[in-house]
């Protein structure tokens, strides 16, 4: 029999996984930002809940960062950048939505199998949290791999970081969580400013090693 505390944190983490799935099928940048904002809000709620049940007030800082910075500041800034730079608003995907969703399900199944098996002796809360966190991390990686726009890759990176924060807050009493989330926020701010300054207007075709090789006359 699980307690209420467990149920709530469990369902918040589960929601985060579902929202990660939602990211996979967005084909417009604006809607991707909205989904990401939602992702950050749920993360904030989840972290705040962990702060309460673990009696760890410092985690409220992380929750506040997630809420203010990631759910509000970053999406607004990205909206403005897109408008000012005139970036394409459609997202080009490498693979179709169907296969991507199937791959996503496979990844979630994989993370459940791995994490639930090896953490059999850890306490139930941390266990499921870790499994969900790994799912979020893997789904975000999938977003980064299947998108070609630099901006949507950044969104993928930010949701990946949300997954890591979820894992870190789930591990009871883990030190440096707040510092890590602050560091990540600074990093993200740099990236967003970097997109703007360097005018990464269009896309990098992929993160495939072949492209630059070709452009430098190394192949074919």
């Amino acid at each position: 029999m699980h307690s209420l505390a467990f149920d709530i944190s469990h369902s918040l983490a589960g929601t985060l996984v579902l929202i990660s799935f939602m990211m996979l099928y967005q084909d417009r940048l604006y809607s991707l930002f909205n989904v990401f904002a939602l992702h950050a809000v749920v993360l904030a709620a989840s972290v705040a809940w962990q702060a309460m049940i673990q009696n760890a007030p410092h985690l409220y800082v992380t929750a506040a960062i997630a809420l203010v910075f990631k759910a509000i500041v970053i999406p607004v800034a990205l909206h403005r950048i897109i408008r000012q730079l005139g970036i394409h608003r459609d997202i080009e995907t490498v693979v179709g939505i169907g296969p991507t969703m199937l791959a996503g399900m496979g990844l979630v199944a994989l993370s459940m199998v791995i994490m639930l098996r090896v953490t059999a002796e850890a306490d139930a809360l941390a266990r499921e949290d870790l499994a969900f966190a790994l799912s979020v991390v893997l789904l975000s990686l999938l977003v980064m791999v299947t998108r070609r726009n630099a901006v949507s890759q950044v969104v993928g990176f930010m949701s990946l970081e949300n997954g890591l924060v979820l894992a870190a807050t789930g591990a009871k009493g883990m030190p440096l969580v707040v510092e890590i989330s602050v560091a990540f926020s600074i990093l993200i701010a740099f990236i967003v400013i970097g997109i703007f300054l360097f005018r990464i207007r269009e896309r990098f075709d992929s993160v495939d090693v072949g492209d630059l090789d070709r452009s430098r006359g190394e192949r074919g």
Partner: protein
Amino acid sequence: MTATAFDAVYGVLLIPIGSAALLALLPGYRLTARLNVVASLATFIAALLLLVLPRPAAGAYVLVDDLNIVFVVLNSFVGFTTSLFSASYIAHELQTGRLTPAYLRFYHAMYQVMMFGMNLAFVSNNIGLMWVAVEVATLTTVLMVGIYRTHAALEAAWKYFILGSVGIAFALFGTILVYMAALPVIGEGNDAMVWTLLIERAREFDTGLLNVAFVFLFLGYGTKVGLAPLHAWLPDAHAEGPTPISAVLSGLLLNVALYALLRFKMLLAANPEALAPGTLMVTMGLGSLLFAAFMLYRRRDIKRLFAYSSIEHMGIIVFAFGMGGPLANFAGLLHMVMHSLTKSAIFFAVGHITQIKGTQQISEIRGLTETHPALGWGLVVGVAAIAGLPPLGIFMSEFLVVSSTFARQPWLAMVLVVGLLVAFGALMLRLTSVAFGEPRGSTQPAQASYVPMFAHLALVLVAGVYLPAPIVAWFQHVAQLLG
């Protein structure tokens, strides 16, 4: 007396970060380039002091032991010589207008931040702090790779960043899992992240968690080491960034990631029931070696050529540590040191060569030994060393890896030898076309600083001919530690 040794640790950390702040504020590239050299020299001296001063006891954040002293000294030495090379390289870049003074200020500040990150990663005793430090070092290099702001440079930096962030994610996840494994044994809080405490009680940890943690850490830090399926960022980052950064990337940053990996491998080795990390490391190491060896033949860009050679050598090193045992570990350590020195020396030469010729295409560079004897012969010696010719240092470490493998796993040794020979052939093929034959391209005289290059090559030669007994004893002791 303990206080003094702590001072040296602080010196290694505070000198770079303090001078980074100073360099960011000061105008004028002549001044900042010199200051960069002075700061790097001061860091090197502080690192040498670590050798002679009594060591501090391991604290919650800082640890100085036999293993990391080697790396701190090597790191700050190569950091110092590279700053010397960088000063003359940068002057040329400024003349040709590829970089502006404002970017140089940024460049020098970032150089010191990177040195800080690497030194912090070496001396940190806290696995969380170590992660942060490796990330700091990585991200500063991302910024520096993109500094030319050409399309290719930005794309290389972006690719590096994206793959680096995958590494970041996996390494942090692995770190969290190690904490989770330690939680029931050591208890909540900072103690469960202190490496010296972790290794004392590693045998009580939950083995399942520890195994999965290591897989994540291996993939995460392995991305930064440049192991085969995760290496895609490495050639681009080397080719598109300024050459001093290629030198520190190959010579130092790969070592930092590998060092982090070694620390966790020791943790796993301390738990008798955990999976043996050897198989994973041997497979990935051999895979990287073979892959890179064959890829070497298809390279047309000289910086890319040596970037693939770095993948090859990281493969050999990971293979050696994967084999384990005192002899293979000894060879792995020696190879790390020799590779750092040789590869950065090669990049020093390559940096000046590409500046003179104005191109990185191998086909455009010929007959260097005739037109620029010092650079040309320097490159010849460097490539001979990296290809593993006697009597240079890498020959000795490769010989040790091969012979220790032959004694235990003859088949693996065969594969290893094939990889080494294939790579050797590729490097010799390219070297003959670049160094000898009819000169091609610009023949303007070089304004090079030869001291760093020849200092490194001399060290590699001396190590190949005669390794002093105290150093051998030290390495043997560290090899024992690595289990």
